[in-house]
């Protein structure tokens, strides 16, 4: 980890006292792969190992839950409606009748 203003040296202290679960998954392993897990980009075997860790480790479960909710917030806040005239502009440009 690169120390910097933003990176407090003890940023991961709450990973102390963490349980190690099947497949050698500890909290730092979970932390490293959490994005991939939540993005559903992992093979089933690894996914199951990480999920087993989440089921056994409260701090990691809290982290995963927060990340999931944050993604939902981002998704919800970025929903843009195209202005109504845009479709008309496109149709005019393509010479397509309005539907």
């Amino acid at each position, binding site marked *: 980890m690169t120390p910097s203003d933003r990176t407090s040296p003890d*940023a991961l202290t709450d990973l102390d006292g963490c349980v190690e679960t099947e497949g050698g998954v500890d909290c730092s392993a979970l932390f490293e792969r959490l994005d991939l897990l939540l993005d559903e980009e992992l093979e089933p075997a690894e996914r199951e190992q990480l999920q087993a860790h989440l089921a056994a480790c409260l701090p990691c479960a809290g982290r995963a839950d927060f*990340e999931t909710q*944050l993604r939902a917030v981002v998704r919800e806040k970025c929903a843009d409606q195209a202005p109504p005239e845009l479709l008309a502009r496109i149709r005019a440009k393509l010479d397509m009748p309005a539907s």
Partner: protein
Amino acid sequence: MSDVASTGATDVEVEVVDGVQPDGSIQRAELSDDERNRLFEEQVMPLADRLFGAAMRYTRDPVDAQDLVQEAMVKAYRSFHQYQQGTNLKAWMYRVLHTTFLSMYRKKQRRPQENLTDEWGDHTLYDAVGKAGSAESEVLAGITDDAVREALAALPEQFRMAVYYADVEGFAYKEIAEIMETPVGTVMSRIHRGRRGLQAALEDYARERGLITDGKDA
């Protein structure tokens, strides 16, 4: 070319047009004008709304975003014959949007390739909230539309769009790689670092609003 001569055919029977299979898929790359219009209308036009959201993230300006979507739709229409029916239309269309953006805007900017540092480290909003002892739900509930949009807008383009495609559009890494014409490993790295940057900006916002109150100085 099939010769569909009917004028503004009200109900073109599927069987009438050459190459259309009973399940509606098209085998021939070349479509009649009527058929192309119908498919474009059915399949591509409904994407315009979503494309506008992505265009807003690319251009960060509503007027430019409209121009970008319009131009991308025109390009898509012209190259619709290259789209293989049955493959991932949404990813194809976003790729058209991406390349259209590059040709319309990036040339003008010509800024040095955004060099993405690790200034955000591994720090997460979750850790900041936890250290401050703030309520996670309150922090999440206190994040406004503008806060998210501005935090995203402040990210360098490649990070911004990778995060947007993953978190908002829900594309798989492989699809984002296709859209942005970049290796999957690069996509992963951009998403990861982009999210860190996004969270750092949201943390600043939450501190300014008093949603996170302790502080590094506590």
